[in-house]
């Protein structure tokens, strides 16, 4: 029977380092994802060094209003004479901070709701999904405006508003993943061991759903930044912090006389959101390599 027996896997089991390099290799196969990552890193560095580059408040008047760009101030000044580059640097902090925190809140909440609904099914599923649908039926941006208007504009209220409008999509995604995992035989084996439900959900099923959650979460950061920009464009941002949306909003009335006031913050929003989307795409390719192969 010797020729019928199957060979055991050879060599040492791949360690953490090896799996990380493998992930990196898959990620870098997607060129645009690498470009996105570079842009994103640039924005991150800008946000990190903003207090050192522009130690003064970005609201401080720097010089003559509406100075042309590439003169004394690299991106010029706005209608009140504030340095636009200082605003962009400080605005990067606001955008990334709000984007990240709102996403984390939305992902955690959405995952909990989705996991419970998918794992338990039955009336728990019905109840949680009806609640989710209520949130999904309201147009998310209008809903966010409403929430911020009610809570009065501040960083906290913006984060809460963005999280509230973002979690339902995640809850649905996680629920779907859990539904398909719920009846896998390995979960049944865990039930037979007498493993408590929370442990099955957290230790056994959740790690198997992480890839789609990470990908959806990374894209959610981009959406959150867009919503935040939109809110502050409408004047619903925190009046005490500089933000890209606020800059665009402040310059819109003089768009034809001083194009640079809107343009540079707008480009910053565009590049950041684009970069995050590209990175999200790259993560998707690296975490679900089979999907990529199917694309050919």
């Amino acid at each position, binding site marked *: *029977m010797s*020729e*019928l*027996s*199957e060979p*055991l*896997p050879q060599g*040492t*089991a791949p360690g953490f380092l090896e799996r990380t390099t493998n992930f990196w290799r898959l990620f870098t196969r997607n060129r645009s994802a690498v470009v996105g990552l570079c842009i994103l890193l640039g924005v991150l560095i800008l946000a990190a060094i903003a207090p050192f580059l522009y130690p003064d408040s970005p609201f401080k008047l720097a010089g003559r209003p509406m100075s042309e760009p590439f003169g004394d101030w690299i991106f010029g000044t706005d209608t009140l004479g504030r340095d636009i580059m200082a605003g962009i640097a400080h605005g990067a902090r606001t955008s990334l901070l709000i984007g990240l925190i709102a996403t984390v809140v939305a992902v955690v909440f959405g995952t909990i709701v989705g996991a419970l609904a998918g794992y338990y099914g039955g009336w728990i599923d019905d109840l949680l999904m009806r609640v989710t649908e209520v949130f999904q039926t309201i147009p998310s941006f209008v809903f966010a405006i409403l929430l911020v208007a009610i809570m009065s504009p501040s960083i906290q209220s913006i984060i809460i508003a963005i999280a509230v409008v973002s979690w339902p999509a995640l809850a649905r995604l996680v629920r779907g993943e859990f539904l398909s995992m719920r009846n*896998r*035989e*390995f979960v*049944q*084996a*865990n*039930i*037979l*061991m*007498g*493993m*408590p439900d929370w*442990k099955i959900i957290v230790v*056994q099923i959740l*790690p*198997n759903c992480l890839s789609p959650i990470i990908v959806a979460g990374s894209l959610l950061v981009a959406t959150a930044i867009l919503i935040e920009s939109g809110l502050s464009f409408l004047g619903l941002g925190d009046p005490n912090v500089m933000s890209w949306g606020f800059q665009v909003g402040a310059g819109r009335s003089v768009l034809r006389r001083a194009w640079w006031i809107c343009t540079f913050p707008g480009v910053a929003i565009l590049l950041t959101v684009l970069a995050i989307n590209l990175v999200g795409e790259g993560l998707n390719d690296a975490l679900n390599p089979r999907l990529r192969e199917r694309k050919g």
Partner: protein
Amino acid sequence: MSALVDIRNLYVSLPDGADRAHAVEDLSMSVNPGEIVCVVGESGSGKSLTARALMGLLPEPRVRASAGEIHFEGRDLLALDREERRLLRGEQLAMIFQEPMTALNPLQTVGKQIEEVLLVHTRMSRRERRERVRKLLEEVHLPDPPRIAASFPHELSGGQRQRAMIAMALILDPKVLVADEPTTALDVTTQAQILKLIRELQERHNTGVLFITHDFGVVADIAHKIVVMQHGRMVEAGPADQILNRPREPYTRALIGAIPDLHPRSTGRPETREVLKVAELEKTYTRKNFLGPANTVHAAKQVAFSLNRGETLGIVGESGSGKSTVARCLVRLMQPDSGAIELDGIDIAGLSRTALRPHRRRVQMVFQDPYASLNPRRRVGDIIAEGPITQGARRVEADARARELLGLVGLDPSAAERFPHEFSGGQRQRIGIARALAMDPEVLVADEPVSALDVSVQAQVLMLLSDIRDRLGLSIVFITHDLRVAAQVCDTVAVMSKGEVVEMGPVAEIFTAPKHSYTKELFSSIPGRDWQVPDLTAAQGAA
């Protein structure tokens, strides 16, 4: 007689990064008119890709026929352009697939789909087409052809769908029929009918059939000629009788030697201490309809049996017979509606989840699908040690025990560090067995534990199961649809049909003198029933 299809030195290349460069290597074979050629091999032998290369259905350009010729009526198919091949397909070369549900379009009626073939290849009028479809459905012995033609695929049973597929394949009277595992997804009684049908139609139309299968029983029933493949290469080819009864190559011998014999193995008398007693077990499934009455399916009706220490009870039956429901009730993945499941006198049928927890350990399960039954994100060692840790064992002890168990099931203890995807199907099934054993169970419920495995691996896993049963004094409830397997591992057999145990008794009695009509039908449908698997063990030493 000149060959209908002549495959010469065919190579099918695989994309870079596959485990080998060629799926099929240097394959030469031929099919004559009126001849059934069976291509047999285990998974990964390249048998299916051979069929697809003949049909021009390879997933090009990643997988393509890179060298060789396939001659059909004097023309090399591989040299034809797409349009010429398309015209040949359906008209001269037809194919039937393994899974009739996915091979048929769910949104079109069966009749319309069969008509489609006529629409593409002929200039028949609508009336003529209808008439031809009706006649053909009759020919494949479908009851009430007009009704079948007007039905959608989901309204038919698996066997009926496969008949409809055969009708579709044969409608233009093709010269060659390629059948890729056409009966693998079917129940054994349906399989017997479909095989009979293929044989009958093939004889009537003098069709050449290329029949792909992994099942030597099926081969024994219908093959004229046999081609044995392994790792993309032809191992041995010849007339059916020669390959089945006097195989020459060691691989063929090993394959045939691994087929479980239908004659029940003589069993030692198990102990008489009763471990498990099931009485009047009932389970119904109800599907609520939004409007109208609810659908109720009786999955288990008054099921009763008992199991002694060291005994293996086989529950055999076709799909939908309720055997898996019974298994799931035994391990309490499912709550039975009523009845008793007594473990050493303690009834666990009605216990709540908390009350059940201390008893969980005593009944463990081995699952069917070696790919879905292990968590892909956990190391093998953790998968095995999890159970004891949940039950309160210390981490260090559980890990040590996991390594010991890996040794017991025939794997290297270093496997504990690896992830499940590094192992083959059979090895994963061993890991699944080790996980069940880690709980120190008294009863092992094995739900089709070998049906997803190749026959050679199957034999090894079965051997492992009976070995650990004897060593650890386990009792096993063995759920299977494969009567050959049941004959080899079981002491007692319960035959289930439509939720009821129709017959139960010692394996030798049931196999030699079945009493119930359903049992008789089941046994007469076993593929290759008339073929006595030759005893090759003596000769094997020499080879």
